[in-house]
């Protein structure tokens, strides 16, 4: 390689290093802005060990995170502490926060060891609903929207792995009660209301046993089609 080529490569490398450096600096600074979030969701959005109800944020799809933040602000979700924080935050800032956490490495986690063991009947019930759904009751399988590996679908469908059983059961219960809502059509509310309490328990326990040891990210946008329209996802789905 001649001198000019080397110089060009050096120059390119410097520009890349600068750009990367600036990007890394910006990301670092954003974390500094979000100390309030870190108190419950971890320094890197990894959740808090020993306080499993505070969910992890890292690696969740950006559209999903934004929908939740906006939901706390606009009353579709009910958590007073979260509303307290985002009440006076505009969409642009909420998008920036969502993008920040979405870009962080997803939580790698073995199966939730705190989840109660399931007997064979409960596991079979949950697996059937999780993998096949119940067409007779118009219930799609969990995997139909959340992916065969249950790692989610960008930008709007979250992973179901690496979540504690209590958290999953609480969310399904909130959907049934209407204290958690999504933009209409609220497909998760339809599904949660069609599920029986023992099915919710079984699904929560079963999902909490699903590990995400490799830190799998949500499938890229448009990887597969959803079986029913969901307002929250339509609002964030980017048509390729």
């Amino acid at each position: 390689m001649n001198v000019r080529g080397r110089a060009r490569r050096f120059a390119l490398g410097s520009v890349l290093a600068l750009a990367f450096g600036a990007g890394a600096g910006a990301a670092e600074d954003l974390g500094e802005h979000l100390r309030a979030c870190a108190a419950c969701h971890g320094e890197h959005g990894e959740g808090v060990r020993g306080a499993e109800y505070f969910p992890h944020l890292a690696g969740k799809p950006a559209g999903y995170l934004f929908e939740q933040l906006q939901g706390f602000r606009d009353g579709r979700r009910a958590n007073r502490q979260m509303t307290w924080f985002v009440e006076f935050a505009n969409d642009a800032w909420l998008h920036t926060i969502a993008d920040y956490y979405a870009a962080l490495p997803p939580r790698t986690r073995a199966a939730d060891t705190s989840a109660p063991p399931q007997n064979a009947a409960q596991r079979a019930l949950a697996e059937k609903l999780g993998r096949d759904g119940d067409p007779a009751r118009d219930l799609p399988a969990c995997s139909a929207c959340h992916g065969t590996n249950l790692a989610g679908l960008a930008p709007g469908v979250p992973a179901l792995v690496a979540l504690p059983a209590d958290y999953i059961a609480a969310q399904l219960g909130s959907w049934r009660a209407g204290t958690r809502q999504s933009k209409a059509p609220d497909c998760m509310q339809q599904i949660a209301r069609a599920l029986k309490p023992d099915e919710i328990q079984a699904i929560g326990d079963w999902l909490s046993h699903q590990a995400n040891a490799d830190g799998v990210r949500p499938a890229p946008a448009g990887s597969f089609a959803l079986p029913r329209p969901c307002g929250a996802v339509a609002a964030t789905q980017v048509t390729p």
Partner: protein
Amino acid sequence: MSVRRRLGLIGLILLPLLLALGAVGAVLFARQGGFAPYNVPNGGASDVPHDAATLQRGEYLARLGNCATCHTARGGKPFAGARGFVTGYGWIYSTNLTPDVASGIGDWSLPEFAHVLRNGVSRHGVLYPVFPYAHFAALTDDDIAAIYAYLRSLPPVATSQPQNLLEWPASWRPALIGWRMLYYRPDTSAAASSDRGRYLADGIGHCAMCHSRRGEYGSLPAEGYFAGGPIPWLRWYAPPLDSAQLARYSEAQLAQYLRAGQTDAGAAYGPMAEVIYGGLHVLTDADATAMARWLKSVPAHAPAATQPLPAMTEAVDGAAVYRRVCADCHADDGGGQSGRYPALRDAVAMTAPDAINAVRLVLYGGLPPTTAANPQPYSMPPFVYRLSAAEIAAVVNYTRREFGRRSSALTAADVEADEGIVLE
């Protein structure tokens, strides 16, 4: 004594009493504005200029008045009303300001709209003083016309008005005439003032609704003007607005605070964050400066009594808690971090006679409002999940003594009494 004579005697005593009462009533009635406020003009929508400049000015004024902040339910259509307000007398719901004919102000004339803004009486009766008509009375005709034109340019939204849930006699609107006779004195001196800052602060901005000291039954006596005090039913304390309280802000800094929601001298939280997010962030440089100048020129109120500082005798060492969880952002000496975390030294939460702001901020943290001038604010974590009530009491006592020169002796029980997030 015959019955007739007895009645005559009673009459002789009662008649002057009744006449005296009537005279006092007539004077009080005249002082709240006489009959004129109850004579509401009507007569269909008015044709008003709706050129771009008028609409823009109307929108700007509606912002500064935070009309949509009160007249929008959480997640609801802007200006369509139905936001609930909790008061000591029950719940009151805001109304629909969109030009829907049935549920909004679609068939209100400009004279009717102006009358309601200035007198607090609409076609539906006397309005509750949660609506700041005492302040809007100062608005000029031109400004009211611009706001009217802007509201009429909004998409109409049909709504069903939630019923207020009030105790008797507050539930009976004519009772408000009695309240007005006792407590309402129309004052439009801000309109006559040539001071733009005063016009904005006392008129459309209605700053006094939170920053003046309230009298009985939610009244706003003249002597409480900008004297500060607890915000009724919201569990926040609003500081006085005067030359002493605002001395730590330069005029430019205070103007910046009103537009950005944050300066090194202080960050907006609670209801002030909402006021900036919902409105004041659109202030022009000139108007923000005019407001800052006026607020800083208000004569100082007598400072709240300061007690001698007793020696600290707490079981928990507040200074140690401060160094462990606060000093990283707010610095050992309470000086904060320029551009990021506000100074605690002399901050309202530290110096206020009421510790409620400090307690609630430590309990639940905060995120200043997003504004064009501060699009990515820094935040404060909640400590309710991390510190015990005794530790929170100790650290609030320490910081208020150290940075606010306030005698502060909160107990864990005091902190627990303030727990619970109020969003309404």
